[in-house]
């Protein structure tokens, strides 16, 4: 069994400008967030991989009614295809559409230190 990527390691990588994912050696699936086993085949033979830091917007929305704790309005949340995996993050430029090319440009963080990738138009 190979090492298992933790949230802490994934989180630190985002803060250092890298995106880590997992590749399943059994079924060849690549995912953008760490798990103890592959969600598609159950194998624990997961290799930590560095994902590309640029990609294409898979889907996005602009949130105008935020939850308690977020003061701003009109921030854009997206799922971005990076290589064979996808990650969720924020988009810094408004008006980025599905299919647009974006590049990792930093991170946002909640009050408990959970980071989320930030992308901007390429």
């Amino acid at each position: 069994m190979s090492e298992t990527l933790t949230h802490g390691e994934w989180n630190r990588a985002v803060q250092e400008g890298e995106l880590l994912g997992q590749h399943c050696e059994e079924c060849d699936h690549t995912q953008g967030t760490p798990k103890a086993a592959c969600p598609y085949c159950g194998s624990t033979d997961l290799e930590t991989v560095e994902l590309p830091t640029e990609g294409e917007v898979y889907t996005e929305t602009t949130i105008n009614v935020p939850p308690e704790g977020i003061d701003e309005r009109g921030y854009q949340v997206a799922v971005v295809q990076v290589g064979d995996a996808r990650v969720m993050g924020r988009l810094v430029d408004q008006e980025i559409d599905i299919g647009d090319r974006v590049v990792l440009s930093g991170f946002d963080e909640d009050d408990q230190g959970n980071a989320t990738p930030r992308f901007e138009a390429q």
Partner: protein
Amino acid sequence: MARAAVVGADMTEFGVHDRSLQELFGEAALGAFADAGVEPSAVDAFYFGNAMGGQTENDTHLGPKLASHVGIAGVPVQRFEDACATSANAFKNAVEAVEAGIHDVVLVGGVERCTPETGKDTAEMTRIFASASHRQYEQPTGLTFPGVFALFTKRHMHEYGTTEEQLAEVAVKNHGNGALNPNAHFGKETTVEEALEGPVVADPFRLMDCCPFSDGASAVVVVSDDAADSYDEPVDVGGVGHATDVVPICDKETPHVTQAARDAASQAYDQAGTSADEMDFAEVHDCFTGAEILASEAIGFVEDGQGGAAAEEGVTARDGERPINPSGGLKAKGHPIGATGTGQIVELAEHLRGDAGERQIEGAERAVAHNLGGDAATTVVTVMEARE
């Protein structure tokens, strides 16, 4: 052979209530007992759903509290929590228990308060709802529940050309149906123009694309197939499918196909020995207009990509070929999280008995309910049939 039967069904009005959880649930439970013609002493188990009472009202060990309130203290009670699919999951487990011969007469239901009566405003409640998304990989982005379904719906629009006008048509249809439902949160019709003028919550969703925060309760009495004939107007449960999908959203293979709903629907149809084509109507989880479009495809009522067009062309209208949400759905009937799943079962039972009043689907003999929870991660699909 049916897996079980519903012999009593009732719900409160969904809307704003200033009563406590036990009093709200008591109305639905005692109504279901009366409808079934059973005394509380005949009930031998209670399967109960509440999703957020701990966060919204500092009220957690609700099972025995509600059992005591409705006269069934002493029976085994289990509480289910599965985000918006909470009481459908309770119902599934009750059907399995009755079918396995573990219990004979089971009370199943749910209750929730989500309106400012809880003391929580919109921002606080938005945060509590968002707790059903992934804590590490979704919540830190500031994702909300309208945002979750907006992400699915925007991709569907990109793939198939679904339009904002088609989303608005879902709201118009469901408000029209809700106007005929005395238990609905919203009893007022709307128009496409009005829907398209509303403020944007999370694009493409405007205010009228979103279901309300509601308070309410629903309850049903479930008995075995054998026992059902000794009750008036039993309604058979043919199948209950239950599936989950990968979380978070970014790791789902094709988020907008809502795979869990497809898996649960095929299980439910297979168990009942039927198919989508045989269904006379559906109640689906339209927490947002886009969610109804995805659900209409996932349960096999319309072809993939055609959900928007089906709403626009009236296919899913009450008098259309494939009626969806004659109750008004979550959009107009309301969405008291833990009460929604069994609320759908109540609606199915009323139509299959011919008791749905002005919104009755004429001659309905078979129907399907689709109750989704979390970021499309849990779905429970139930097929019910009128007993011959």
